[in-house]
């Protein structure tokens, strides 16, 4: 079910009430597990089986890895876990993509192959929970941790509803221990959690869906070339939409978990104030970038195998990171561009060394704007439906397209401009701070007024029926 739905309001109220009831801790954990399966099954009940399969396989595989005496057996059981998880992911998410590429490849050598239509529904959030549960067996295999002792705790870890379908991708060491002891939110945790839920839903429903999506959809949905104003508005609006949509989900997830007494890690830290791309990836989708670092980049050798291998490892990591987002070559290009940016930044650092003017505020501001500009170029590939559409959008942005049309109305341009300007300014002002630190310093009346404003806007916007963008990944 969607966070931005009436059903979720009722669901969360019931879960919180049961979690606060005087019940044994084991019963409360069972409630959480059932609630999580219900939350996921509300999209498509049979897909709960996928969660159960991942849970059962990884639970046993981790134990077998831990007990194995030989490296071969350890590797065998790791392969069992990876094959199960990546097999499910590959079948549901990449099956059609692989088939289409096979057909194109066959056609390029003169073989006309017409496969039957691929009518497989993508289970929502499959990439998130697959990566989360794989981290468990990988940690045991890499001897970073021992298997957990409780199947119930591990089952909740795999399916914990607040972050199940769009992250943050939580590590076993972060969440499983929290299920060991009875947890219940203190009153400040509960109300601060509620405030975070309000902020997250405000980001999603009001800012992303109401004020930014119309401009982004209008520009990217246009057929043919569009005016530079329209193109830039659309791309900048999408940069805001994707941030508020995804950050909104993470913030709501963190808030829901906190209302139950559990702590989830931050997934964003004002990413559009990033100075450079390594900084960006410390601020954007942090739980994925660190997952890729710990389970892909470092196992590939990271920066320990020489200069050339470092750049190759970087590119492999970002290309696969792109493909993680979606079964399309445009996502691979998106990842590839980020890989190139990171490589270029690394190279520039190597060549330039440390300079005193790096600390100059104007230099930082210029670099932050350059970073934001280049990130917007990557969003074009992320959002466009095809390469042709992406190239047309890029040509439109730089006034290189022939016969451009105006497609956006002032009703789309003005709200997008206001919200995106506010977003970038806020990120810059808060780049070295945190939401909690700001709330701690702010006067009470201001917090109350902002909270009431966000709640009121949520009420009059009447929610929205649209799913979070990252659900499809």
């Amino acid at each position: 079910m969607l966070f931005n739905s009436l059903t979720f309001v009722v669901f969360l109220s019931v879960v919180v009430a049961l979690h606060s009831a005087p019940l044994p801790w084991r019963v409360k954990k069972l409630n959480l597990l059932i609630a999580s399966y219900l939350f996921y099954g509300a999209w498509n009940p049979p897909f709960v089986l996928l969660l159960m399969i991942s849970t059962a396989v990884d639970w046993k595989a981790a134990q077998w890895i831990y007990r194995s005496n030989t490296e071969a057996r350890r590797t065998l059981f790791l392969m069992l876990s990876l094959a199960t998880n990546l097999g499910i992911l590959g079948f549901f998410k990449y099956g059609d993509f692989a088939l289409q590429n096979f057909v194109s490849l066959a056609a390029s050598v003169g073989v006309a192959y017409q496969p039957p239509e691929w009518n497989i529904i993508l289970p929502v959030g499959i990439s998130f929970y697959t990566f989360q549960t794989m981290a468990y067996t990988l940690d045991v295999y890499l001897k970073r941790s021992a298997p957990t002792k409780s199947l119930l705790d591990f089952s909740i870890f795999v399916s914990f509803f607040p972050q199940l379908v769009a992250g943050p991708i939580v590590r076993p060491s972060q969440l499983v221990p929290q299920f060991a002891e009875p947890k219940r939110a203190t009153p400040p945790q509960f109300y601060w959690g509620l405030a975070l839920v309000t902020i997250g839903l405000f980001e999603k429903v009001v800012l992303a869906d109401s004020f930014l999506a119309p401009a982004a959809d209008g520009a990217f949905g246009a057929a043919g070339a569009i005016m530079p104003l329209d193109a830039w508005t659309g791309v900048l609006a999408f940069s805001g939409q994707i941030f508020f949509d995804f950050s909104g989900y993470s913030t709501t997830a963190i808030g829901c978990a906190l209302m139950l007494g559990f702590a989830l890690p931050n997934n964003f830290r004002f990413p559009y104030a990033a100075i450079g791309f390594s900084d960006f990836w410390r601020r954007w989708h942090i739980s994925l970038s660190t997952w890729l670092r710990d389970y892909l980049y470092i196992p590939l050798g990271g920066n320990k195998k020489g200069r050339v291998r470092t750049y190759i490892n970087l590119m492999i990591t970002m290309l696969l990171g792109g493909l993680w987002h979606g079964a399309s070559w445009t996502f691979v290009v998106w990842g590839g561009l980020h890989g190139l940016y990171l490589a270029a930044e690394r190279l520039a650092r190597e060549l330039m060394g440390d300079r005193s003017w790096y600390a100059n505020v104007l230099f930082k501001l210029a670099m932050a704007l350059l970073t934001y500009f280049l990130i917007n170029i990557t969003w074009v590939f992320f959002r466009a439906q095809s390469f042709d559409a992406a190239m047309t959008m890029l040509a439109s942005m730089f006034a290189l397209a022939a016969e451009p049309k105006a497609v956006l109305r002032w009703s789309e341009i003005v709200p997008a401009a206001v919200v995106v300007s506010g977003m970038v300014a806020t990120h810059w002002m808060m780049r070295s701070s945190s939401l909690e630190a700001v709330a701690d310093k702010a006067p009470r009346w201001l917090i109350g007024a902002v909270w009431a404003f966000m709640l009121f806007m949520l009420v009059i916007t009447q929610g929205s029926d649209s799913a979070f963008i990252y659900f499809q990944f």
Partner: protein
Amino acid sequence: MPSSTSSSDALRAPTPLSYFDPEHVDRPVPGKPWRTLCVAALIATIALTAGWEIFWRGKGMIAGDYKNSNALWAQERRKAVGDATVMIGSSRIFFDIDLDIWEEMSGVRPVQLALEGTSPRVFLKNLAEDDSFRGLVIVGVTAPVFFTQDGGLRADVLGYTRDQTPAQRWDHFLSYGLEETLAFYDEQTRPATQLIIWPWPLREGMTPLFYPRKLSISTRDRNTEMWARVVDDPVYQKEAQQQWATLTAQVAPPPSADGSPPPPFPQEAIDAVLAELKANVDAIRARGGDVAFLRLPYDGGFQPVEDFGFPRERFWDPLIAATDSVGVTWHDYPELQGYAIPEWSHLDPREAERYTRAVTPIFYARMEEKKAERAARKD
């Protein structure tokens, strides 16, 4: 254990920007009286919401007006099984037929599946492919929408109905409570909608935006009538007419100044539509069901578009002949003419009642005649 969920003091010093730490989760809570703040925010929100509700009630919005959502349509679609009588079409049959009066006159309460701006052909095909349906389909024909090639504005409702998740069904059920209580719970009051209909200047090279205002109110089973404000508020009525003028200028240009007709609709396209219709009608009849057609009144800006652009002899008559169906058009019956049509396309509520009382007996009489004619043909 490596998680921390409360540490107000940790906030006093700026939190260093550390990379993600897989061993720790710091979730500090700012030091504020959160319960008090929460209660204050809730009270302020309730007060603001009450003001918003009063404002919109002043604009004519009422509680108990159900959203014409995909979920409501899907709910009604699930009733269209067995020998049900089903109405499909675009907005005219939706506004102009009062289901209560139809039921009173005929003893049958039709399932209302018409959707604004959407060709009923997609719904006819859907019913034809549904083996569980063997009832009567009454098709409202608004020629420019009926013959459209892409299904129209809300053809995606079929995909929604097929893929509707359990959560979406629960949401729909829960939304009843809000719809019964709150007048402002309506698409038109959303800030995003208000931004769209705000009179912004038009950008160079763009045509005026077609964005119909709220025109109707509906019950829980989609019995729909024109919203009172369209009838009573001349300014709002003018705005509604202006929207239709914008639409007709864009999608169906009226005849040119010298009176010559607009570019003709290709005959091959009409033939293809008729062939598709016949196949679907035959499929429903093969299961014991039937299909009939209604054409409902219009005037003002729609008259030149429909009369010149979609002349009866090229569209309506061949449609009835090709499908061997009952076709009742307002042009043929004096008692179906002369009704008040405030915004050129839909009857006002009182006129819809009067119209339904007039058309129901005509319709069923024609159905009886057709039945006799078919029986005679068999003999």
